[in-house]
């Protein structure tokens, strides 16, 4: 082994390179504050490695993107952990990069001759934000779709070039397969290449000028980078890595339902690191919007970029003249971002409760899993279609509904020459079945012990009420949302209302009197269920 390495060294002089990299002399007093860069390096490394694993399974197409992410999480051992590490790694990386930048700012490490080191670092922060932005489109769930719609519409607001810019980001007039392709390519090829170039320049520049060291030069001999400072780096990296693993294990990455462009009720929220920008939009309505989307972020980034050129006087202490002024601006910036993020977090819509199935999916469950359901005619081992247990939702809603209403027309060749058409599922039943399948495919826990009352209420709801009333995110919006109707009205009142709304309201109502249209037990079940929704 030793001989082999000697031979390798004689041909490549690799030991000189290693020595050159490790035997850097650091100024005396180089403290733990100077480990922030290593943490960023570690996290970038983790993102590369976990990204490599994810890319092996991810399919950048609207038909399969969602299912491939589902497959990673459910079909691979530790796949949920793999995605969790990448997902949490993104957040950790944004935090670590900002912390590193703040450290450099407060110790005045960006000052001449390190202007370019600072600029390459700032560029890296922007590239990392670019990674985050392109990354969360990829799972093609509701959040991905709608947050990206908002992002692209913001770009569209750019003066003069907005329309063209939005079209370039989308790859056309609509958000779809072409968008996903280019964002995927940016996320796994373009941005990583940029990042590698920036990292190499950043570290080369750091080595060229040496690290800045403590604010006031400390007396004493220089410290060797390896192993004395590397030890500090290693301890910090170990702590951060352990936290990352813990976060990924305790709070697995979430996947919304599959993207549904026809859902007008989804309220998109970006990841927390873009929440401040998102929140700011609310204060600059209409023609003022570019102030929030372009001018304020532009000025903030411009300030950071110009910092080493503005702050040219001697003295690195953040609270002494002449740096006090810049520190004040930085604080204002920090408070602004933190405040807006806080407001954004407070203003978040409540998360959908994955255990609250409402009624439509329950009705769908009864239809899709009943003994006499017709799906199993074809979706069976040895049949023309895969069993429902591993059928994926690769088609849009309209296709699914039509397919369930008349499976044979949608899948040509399935109907034999002399076969009668099978019993056709009504549009309402199909809607319910689709709602059920989507819940199952989103990985929501299937409810057990559904009472007969709830089952009856569900089937009744799926045939009638669903047209106008929404429960837990499903249903029409003509009438009021019934998700928490039990808070507003007692059971008896709901019962009377369903039977004859006009007599209760004392005025004409759009809602028909269901007293004659539904059976008494159906109304009983509905009233009982709805009253329980609080």
């Amino acid at each position, binding site marked *: 082994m030793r001989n082999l390495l000697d031979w390798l060294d004689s041909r490549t002089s690799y030991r000189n390179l290693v020595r050159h990299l490790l035997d850097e002399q650091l100024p005396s007093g180089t403290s733990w504050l100077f480990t922030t860069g290593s943490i960023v390096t570690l996290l970038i490394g983790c993102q590369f490695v976990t990204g490599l*694993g994810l890319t092996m399974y991810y399919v950048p197409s609207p038909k399969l993107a969602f299912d491939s992410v589902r497959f*990673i999480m459910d079909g691979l051992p530790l796949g949920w952990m793999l995605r969790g590490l990448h997902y949490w790694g993104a957040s950790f990386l944004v935090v670590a990069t900002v912390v590193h930048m703040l450290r450099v700012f407060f110790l005045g490490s960006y000052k001449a001759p390190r202007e370019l080191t600072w600029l390459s670092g700032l560029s890296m922060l922007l590239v990392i934000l670019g990674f985050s932005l392109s990354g969360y489109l990829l799972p093609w769930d509701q959040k991905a779709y709608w947050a990206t719609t908002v992002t692209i519409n913001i770009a569209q607001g750019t003066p003069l070039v907005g329309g063209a810019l939005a079209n370039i980001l989308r790859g056309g007039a609509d958000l779809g397969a072409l968008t996903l392709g280019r964002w995927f390519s940016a996320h796994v090829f373009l941005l990583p290449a940029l990042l590698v170039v920036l990292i190499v320049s950043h570290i080369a520049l750091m080595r060229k000028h040496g690290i800045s060291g403590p604010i006031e030069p400390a007396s004493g001999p220089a410290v060797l980078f390896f192993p004395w400072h590397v030890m500090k780096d290693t301890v910090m990296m170990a702590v951060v890595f352990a936290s990352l693993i813990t976060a990924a294990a305790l709070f697995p990455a979430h996947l919304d339902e599959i993207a549904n462009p026809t859902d007008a009720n989804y309220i998109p929220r970006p990841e927390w690191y873009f929440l401040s920008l998102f929140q700011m939009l609310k204060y600059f309505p209409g023609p003022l919007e570019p102030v929030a989307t372009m001018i304020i972020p532009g000025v903030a980034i411009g300030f950071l970029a110009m910092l080493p050129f503005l702050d040219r006087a001697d003295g690195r202490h953040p609270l002494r003249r002449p740096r006090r002024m810049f520190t004040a601006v930085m604080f204002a910036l920090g408070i602004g971002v933190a405040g807006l993020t806080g407001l954004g977090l407070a203003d978040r819509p409540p998360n959908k409760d994955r255990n609250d199935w409402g009624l439509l999916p329950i009705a769908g469950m009864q239809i899709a899993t009943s003994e006499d359901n017709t799906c199993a005619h074809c979706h069976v081992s040895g049949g023309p279609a895969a069993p429902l247990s591993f*059928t994926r939702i690769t088609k849009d809603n309209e296709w699914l509904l039509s397919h369930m209403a008349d499976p044979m027309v949608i899948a040509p060749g399935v109907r034999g020459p002399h076969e009668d058409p099978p019993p056709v599922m009504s549009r309402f039943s199909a809607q319910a079945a689709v709602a059920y399948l989507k819940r199952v495919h989103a990985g929501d826990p299937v409810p057990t012990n559904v009472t007969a009352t709830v089952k009856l209420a569900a089937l009744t709801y799926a045939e009638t009420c669903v047209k106008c009333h929404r429960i837990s995110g499903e249903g029409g919006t003509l009438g009021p949302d019934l998700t928490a109707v039990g808070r507003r009205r007692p059971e008896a009142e709901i019962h009377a209302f369903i039977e004859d709304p006009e007599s209760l309201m004392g005025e004409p109502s759009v809602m028909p009197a269901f007293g004659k249209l539904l059976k008494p037990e159906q109304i009983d079940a509905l009233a009982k269920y709805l009253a329980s929704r609080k």
Partner: protein
Amino acid sequence: MHRRTSLPVPTEHASRRGFLVRIIQATYAVIGATLAFVVGGAVVAPSFGRRETMWLHAGDVTALEEGLPLPFTLRVARPDGPSEVVDRKVIYLVKNGNEVRALDSTCTHLGCRTRFNPETKLIECPCHGGVYDVNGNVVSGPPPAPLRPLGTRVENGQVMVQV
């Protein structure tokens, strides 16, 4: 590694240094191993996943002819990563008296699809000239083994085959 002469107390220094180097190496090894376990596990796992077998209805006994391997197409639905696929698998069913045997039509040489030639009453592989008899035994050519027999049972006149 070359040490600088300016550093104080070389011997004590050296042992402390060696200790730190060990700790550093060990920490990186643990981080690397954790990542390798998670990423490697996810990457390697499907390579060793077992395929579940199932019994499918291939055809009816009445449709078979004595001593003649007839091809039947099975539709085998299976998950294909994040997708799903319905494979069409061709098998031969041969009846010998009361016994029905099923043979995989895939040539055991390099995996081409074989064909039954009714004139010669032999199963032939179009790729490299492998030839099997009606029971799947190699007659000539490169195949290293007989055609793979599949589990078969007859229920109420229906031939069920295990794939």
